[in-house]
């Protein structure tokens, strides 16, 4: 019955391949995040990356860069949200300050999550935030209006071809996202 042994061996081998590939699909999530972190792609903001920046001169003359501020509100959030100024010119390696304004338009307390994104993606790692409302969840009381400060600087390691950087924030209502998703089956 050598043939049947061979048959069950190959069967088990194939079944384990299936199980491996199923878990591999979940491994794609951390792999993707690590890949984005190492390469600094996708406009995600992480620590410094070594992948694209090689032996660039550390100290260069400071130069002027234009930062444009954008804001978006996810459809689920009943909030007015906009930057206090639409653009500023900053010098590299010099800390600048701006702010965003958020206003609760409901009579309920809201918990908000704000996700930043930088474009072009390769410049994302060079925008260093010292203080940001995106670091933690924000709470707005009914009809409350708040001004949220952002302190940041643009590192001089930013690519020579980058003259404009877009800093965009998308605001989500934290509770609503979860409860909406939990409830829409009903």
């Amino acid at each position: 019955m050598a043939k049947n042994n061979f048959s069950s061996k190959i069967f088990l081998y194939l079944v384990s391949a299936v199980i491996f590939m199923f878990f591999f699909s979940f491994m794609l999530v951390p792999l993707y995040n690590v890949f984005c972190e190492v390469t600094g792609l996708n406009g995600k903001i992480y620590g410094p990356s070594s992948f694209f920046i090689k032996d660039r001169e550390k100290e260069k003359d400071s130069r002027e860069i234009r930062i444009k501020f954008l804001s978006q509100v996810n459809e689920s959030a009943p909030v007015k949200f906009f930057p206090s100024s639409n653009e500023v010119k900053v010098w590299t390696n010099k800390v600048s300050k701006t702010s965003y304004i958020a206003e609760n338009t409901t009579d309920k307390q809201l918990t908000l999550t704000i996700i930043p994104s930088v474009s072009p993606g390769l410049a994302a790692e060079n925008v260093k935030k010292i203080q940001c409302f995106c670091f933690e969840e924000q709470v707005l009381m009914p009809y409350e209006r708040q001004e949220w400060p952002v302190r940041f600087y643009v590192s001089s390691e930013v690519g020579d071809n980058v003259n404009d950087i877009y800093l965009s924030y998308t605001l989500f209502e934290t509770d609503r996202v979860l409860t909406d998703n939990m409830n829409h089956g009903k």
Partner: protein
Amino acid sequence: MSAVIENHDHEHHGPQKGILRWLFTTNHKDIGTLYLWFSFIMFLTGGAMAMGIRAELFEPGLQLMDPIRYNQLVTMHGLIMIFGAVMPAFVGLANWLIPMQIGAPDMALPRMNNLSFWLLPSAFIILLSTAFMEGGLPGFGWTFYAPLSTNYPNIAYFVFAIHVMGISSIMGSINVIVTIMNMRAPGMTLMQMPLFVWSWLITAYLLIAVMPVLAGAVTMLLMDAYFGTSFFDAAGGGDPVLFQHVFWFFGHPEVYIMILPAFGITSHIISTFSRKPLFGQSSMVYAMVSIAVLSFVVWAHHMFTVGMPLAAELFFMWATMIIAIPTGVKVFNWVATIFKGSITYETPMLFAIAFVVLFTIGGLSGLMLAITPADFQYHDTYFVVAHFHYVLVPGAIFSIMAAVYYWLPKWTGNMYDEKMGKLHFWLSFVGVNVTFFPQHFVGLAGMPRRYADYALQFAEWNAVSSVGAFLFGLSQLLFLYIVIKTVFAGKKATAQVWDGAEGLEWTVDSPAPYHTFETPPKVNG
């Protein structure tokens, strides 16, 4: 290759009577028949949906349905044609042909074979049952991009249906691999295997590699929708682009799952009706293996516009273009096989030649789409729709029709009506081209896909396209008629059926007895 066979008739092993025969059957021929009929029913269902889509697009404006209904039809048309029509048809052909082509008495795991078929109707009942629920059918496109899809009602039904289909495909593939590896007739080496068997061996490995990834993707979707995770939802720190990566990591090999068996079928038919051995048999095998391997490193060409860095775009562009080389090898081998052959143009040969020509057209528009800067222009236009319909309809589906005409005499013992077959071919051929060729034009002119309405300047070609779609769709009823007529009547077929046909399946009687090759045939290499 020559073969010695003995057939024993075991009356006590004959099929059961009535419906129980089909419910409990473990016979590869019965299961193949079930798969083929199921896929034909799904083909007509998905086709009816396509005709609904084309009826709405016949002229600008909204006439027959609102955009929500339109999106549901587009989504279900895609899902049904891919998972319900093309894939089950190939599995049905595999069930019928692989044991007969390698001289095995049945598939290696017959009970699992029965289960993997019966899971399939269950999956489609789950999926289609949402039509009668509040919220209706899924309408987010067959690619179910998150977080659009996670915010749809009835997403759980969709997820479970995909899970069940996936399990069915995986079990089918395991069966195919175990059968091929373990049950070949003594003396048949891997390289001597018929090309249809080779193409299915490679396809089965692709399925085993990527169907679990699809299962993972829909599981993440389910968790995002109901269990509060945020794999793809930016609000919770997830990433929508990640979904596209995971999906197309499955999706691109899936595309080749739907075309590799067609390569095998076409090779057999062209060789038979040219009355010449296939040119470059082993290069065909290597070409299919390279296509399968490359299919894992090209997925991001579906998403050039998401904002990838230049290096990644260049990599995926070149990797995609390299696939043209093994594909070109195959096309040239088919042409070289036809060259100086003693050709006759029976219906299977007509479909096979149309396959080679029209699939090549679809492949060339694929090369245009692979060019990254051009893709930014073509992305999500009707040019893409024209491209993938050219490789799937006159590609995959023509090859399935060719296979049905080619092996139908072996399955039923009767010859089909050649005149009717040719009529069916010409109606289909004209219908397909009238439907999809104009979509290249409107796509290049900028008509976006997945809309129920369009700008006035696209009206003429859309009307032409709709007329073609009705012609193609309705002529498939002729196909149904021809097949049913052949099952019940027709000129008796000989065992050899076609005078150029070679291979073990042509050495058994027509119709093929319920049990074949109970004693393995001897194959001399």
